[in-house]
């Protein structure tokens, strides 16, 4: 079973790879909308990738009001 730290790192790695930002340039507290420059459609894309990667379902209302990677990882962790 993953720890929250592992989950957070995997989220950062996935976002970095998919949105082509340098590995290590993303931090858990970063606002992913601002840091990645993404809109809501791209966020849904990221949601799909996260669901596929972690083998979970993450209803979009679970990410309502969530804008940082750490909180996103917490939402994911609660479904592992």
């Amino acid at each position, binding site marked *: 079973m993953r720890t929250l730290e592992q989950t957070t790192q995997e989220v950062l790695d996935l976002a970095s790879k998919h949105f082509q930002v340098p590995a290590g340039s993303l931090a858990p507290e970063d606002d992913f*909308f601002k840091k990645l420059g*993404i*809109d*809501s*459609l791209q*966020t*849904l*894309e990221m*949601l*799909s*990738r996260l*669901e*596929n990667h972690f083998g979970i*379902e993450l*209803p*979009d*209302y679970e*990410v*309502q009001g969530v804008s940082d990677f750490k909180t996103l990882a917490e939402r994911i962790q609660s479904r592992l």
Partner: protein
Amino acid sequence: MKSFTGKTLRWEWREGIIELTLDREPANEIGLAMLGELEKFVSAFGKLVPETSVCIISSARKQGFSAGADLRELYHTAALLSKARRLSGVRNFLKRIHAVMNAIDAAPFVTIAAVHGVCFGGGFELALACDIIVADKMARFAFPELRLGLIPGFGGIPRLKRDLGNAFVRELLLTGRSVNAARAQAVGLVAQLAAEGEAMRIAQATAAQIVKFDAVARAAAKKFIKPVPRAELRREVDLFCKLFTRPAVMAALKKFVEDFGPMPYLP
């Protein structure tokens, strides 16, 4: 008309298969322009049907199959009209889009929706009018209409109920959430799952199989197994129109249209 290139879509017939490609910036929002060209497509059925076994509907837009109704056009048009004219305008649009969806639903040839990315609202309803949905693993399906104080108005609820268990329909409708392609396949909505970017190829392979079969038997089988739920579709339109007259709907549309932040497609 075996081929057509319009402002929002194009189609090409080749060896018994029509490929209808939606291509309207940014995400194939279904407004008056696309409705008009879909009507053109449906009006060509008379000439196309005798030589067509399959129609594949797909999208050329990176964002996905279709983000649904053109809410910006709906809001800006409705905002200029009196309440009465707003309602008659909406009812007229719904009458036209239902005629298109019903024609696609009941077409004697097999229809396949090849879906990637967002397949929301009216876009989801177009996919549901098809016989088979092939989705790549990045596809997402949603009925977000409740977020606007509405219900799906292009025939989505009766068609989804026709195909799947009521429990899944309720979850989608009442939470407004999107589901990924894997979940959609698990509940039976998506027939085949494709790798990212491969939905069209798999739809074409499926089409190549379908063209082998006798056209009369195929059309009869489809008509038998897929009745169009006309009475319920009419009730859906009536309920949509009743909800649309409420001030909360225009307020929700305004909020969506004026939201230039990253969140409009999220609940």
